[in-house]
Every structure is written in C-alpha cells, then in structure tokens.
C-alpha cells in the first residue's frame, strides 16, 4: 500500500465513528495491539520530549526503509503513536521527510486532544521527521 493509500484508509476508518468516545475506543485498540517494545530500549534518548505521558520511539533501517517501534505508558497516546507508525513504517527516508502529515488534521485528531496532548502529538511527528532526515 502506498503512503497515500494508507493515509486514505485511516481517514476512512476514522470517518466511520461519529462520537469521539468511539474514536478513542479505536485508538485504545490500536494501542493494545502495538507490538511489544523491549524494556531495555526505554532509554532517555528514545523518550519524546513534550509529552505529558512517557512515549518512546525507535527507528531501524532495513533495505532502505525505516521501521519504527514505539511504546507509551498511557494507552491513548500509545494508540496515537501506533497509528503514526502504521502509516510511516516501511517507507523511505525521502517519503517520510517529504510528507506534510496533513492527514492528522483531516481526522481531527489534534483538535480533539487536550493542549498538552496536542503538543505531544506535534512532538511525535517532529521526532518521526527528524529520524527520517538525519537518523538518530
């Protein structure tokens, strides 16, 4: 699936739910199904600054593609980072760095988070972009 197709899939998925509580249920499910993140990787340098809850993000490069893994101690935040990495994992650095992350606005995610969490989301996006642009 191309990056555009994947984004479209998520926009459609979100449009199925009218209520934000249902959208949260969806994010919680995503959070719960996120692949386990090794404890030893929960280091200070993998911690995303600017989030109220703790969020760790790591990237590996294989065959010219970036693969992200992540974790958070808050489940909705974990769902959000899970959503982001499901879109951007397995893409090239150029694809990620060149993307405008506009689909996040399209699903109304940022507007529906508390200001502290919205800042956290911005930090997550910045970190994904930074990892794509200059590695660690």
């Amino acid at each position, binding site marked *: 699936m191309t990056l555009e197709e994947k984004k479209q899939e998520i926009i459609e998925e979100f449009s199925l739910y009218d209520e*934000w*509580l249902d959208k*949260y*249920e969806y994010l*919680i499910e995503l959070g719960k199904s996120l692949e386990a993140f090794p404890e030893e990787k929960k280091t200070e340098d993998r911690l995303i600054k600017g989030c*109220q*809850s*703790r969020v760790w993000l790591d990237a590996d490069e294989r065959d010219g593609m970036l693969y992200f893994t992540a974790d958070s*101690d*808050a*489940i*909705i*935040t974990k769902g959000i980072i899970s959503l982001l990495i499901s879109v951007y994992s397995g893409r090239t650095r150029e694809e990620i760095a060149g993307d405008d992350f506009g689909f996040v606005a399209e699903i109304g995610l940022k507007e529906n*988070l*508390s200001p502290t*969490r919205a800042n956290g989301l911005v930090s997550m996006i910045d970190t994904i972009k930074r990892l794509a642009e200059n590695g660690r």
Partner: protein
Amino acid sequence: MTLFLQKYVNLQTYQKQMSITEIRSQFPILDTCVYGKPLVYLDNAATAQRPRSVVACWKGLVEESNANIHRAVHHLAAQATDAYEAARDRVKAFINAPAREEILFTSGATASINLVASSYGQLFVNQGDEIIVTVCEHHSNIVPWQLLCERKGAVLKVLDVEEDGRLSPERLKKVLTKHTKMVAIAHISNVLGVVNPVKEIVAICHETGVPVLVDGSQGIVHEKVDVQDLDCDFYAFSGHKVYAATGTGVLYGKRKWLEAMPPYMGGGEMIETVRFSGTTYAPLPMKFEAGTQNFNSAPTLVPALDFAESARENPAVQAEQRAILDYVYGHLMLDSRIVLYGTSKEAKIPLFSFAVKGVHHEDLALILDKMGIAVRSGQMCAEPLMDYLGVTGLLRASFAPYNTLEEAKYFIASLQKAIEMLL
C-alpha cells in the same frame, strides 16, 4: 461598606436556606455543554467558578470605578479606594483577624508565601537554621523555602505524613529542633484532601517559639478559618479558589512579625518618605503593598466571601457535601482497582485523588472530558508527594457547594465506564 460595593453585594443576598438548584442558578457557567454533554465541573481545587454577584462586581469595578487607589483626591479614586479597603475589612472579618493592618493583599497564595519566605527569611533565618515543610505541600509552599535556604545556607527539612494522609503532631515534635525557624504546612493538602490538625501543630511549635505559616489555599474554601483560634503566625490563600477574581490573594500575618519584617518589594505606596539618603516605609498594611494594586479585582473578595460563608452555613449544602463525600469515598474505597490517597474519613473534604491500577491517569482524564467531566490529572504541583507515594501522577476530582450528588453519581458511573474501556 461603601455604597458602590453595597450595590453588588445586595444584588444577590445568599440566604442560608437556598437550595442547591438556586445556588447553581447563580453560576451561569454550570449551564455549559461540552461535546454536547452537560458540564460536570470537578476541578474546583484548581479554580472555583464565580457566582453572578462576583461577576457583576468585577464588571462594575472596571466600568464604574476604575481609578488608582490611595493617592488621588478625585471621586473615582476615592470610590475605588473605599472598595479596596472594604475588601480588607471583609477578609479580616472572614478569618477573624485581630486587626485590618494584618491583612495584606497579594496576587495569590504563591505570592503570599514568597513574601514571607523572602522577608521573614531575610531577617530571621541564618546559616544552619532549619525550615520544616511537609511532604504533601504544593510546590508553592516548597520552592520559596528552597530559594531561601539556598540564599541563607539554611536546611529544608521534610515532615512525612501518616498512611491515611494525616499529619502527626508526634512526628513533628521529633523533627523540631532549636534551629527550627519556621514550620510551613498546608491547612488541607491539595492532593490528599485531609484537614490537618493545624491548631495542635501551632501549639507545639509555639512551645519552642517557632512560628507557623499555614497555606490555606484549600482550607479557606472548606473550613471555618479563625486565625486567632488557630493562633497561626501567617495564613495565606488565593481568591480564585474561593469564588473571587483571579489575581487576588491574601496574606494574614501577626502584627509583631509584619512590623519587624523588612519590605518585600519597593516602590509605589509602600513608602513614607523617599530620599536618596534613605527611605522610610509606610505603616502596615501598605508597607507590603508596593506598586499598583489589583483594585479592579480585590474588592470581588467581598461578594465572594459572602457566598463562601452562606454556602458553608447552608444546611442543604452541608447535607449534599456530606452525601457526596460518603458516596464517592465509599465507591473509591470499595473498588479493588482503585487506590485512594488521603483516606482519613473523619478529616476528609470532598476532594479525591486516586490511581487506577494498570490505567494511566491521563487516559482517564481524556475520556472523562469527552463525557463532560472536568477533572485534574497529573502531579498537581506536588511532585515530591507523587515520588513519596510512588506514582507518576493521579486523577483528582474536587467538589464545590454547587456540585450535586447526582453529578457525583454520574462521575463514578463514567469513571467505571472509562476504566472498562482502558483495561
């Protein structure tokens, strides 16, 4: 009471027989809907909502009485000064202070405590002296003392609390030494919601001549405060938690200390004469009120404290608050997934901070928000207490006289729904 203020105070006389519904009708913000659901405001420990009388007074001060106080001779200035000084009298009566000169206006409890730490500390605290705070203090009653200790080479000692959240006078006796220069404690912790035995603590400290500062930010809202009965040396509180305008605050200090303490800030009306050869200071309270005062807001303390008093003495409010306390306390204690902090029931106010096992406080707050419920999540400006309890943060629901048992029930039902979503 000035004629000007009288108009706003009379706008709504809070009869002690008012029903909760009548009280709620005085708080227009309570009719707000969030995400299509009626607002249930349970973040009162951070900021209380304002009754119509306070809002009208606030507006009236700006629209009809805006002039700088104390100096000019014109009509508006006289009116503004009268309103400001009437507020001082109202505060004096509210906390039963011996004299109006012992009531200082500040921007809030934080400013009040900083004033004491800085000014009292400058004169009375020296190298090797000790200041005692408790582990359950708000940062505003920790950091000013840390700054003082750094400046003076003094030592900040920390008093632990008992498992149920109460301060133990016996434990205090063990940490008091001949070097102790101040004991600074919360009347009620903003996290634990337990009323501390302030009178007993003051008596113990006074046996060895140690003064006591009480952070009354929560105490002023929930307790009948009588500073002469408590015999505390300082009592600090903010206006915004007790229904007054933001940016208002009070420091009560015993005259003997305030007379001895050097000014905190210089400038404005705090002087008697200014010469380059030396300046002499105004008498109390103006000695501590440097610069332009918050005359557009401080007088809102008059209708605010009128409301606070009528609510406190209203049997319907007392019964509802008791019912809320019993209901919420009972449910939080019974639910094995929940850990409530500050469990001393006999000293408990309707303020509940708790953790849910395996669930992040922030997730809960976010889901409750979507259900229309405003609660606080996080460290609540008490990081040392969070470390002490071994948690990264808590969820806090704090109730006010305009909250109902029905709201408490909705809160508990919503909380259970949120936990089930997250577990």
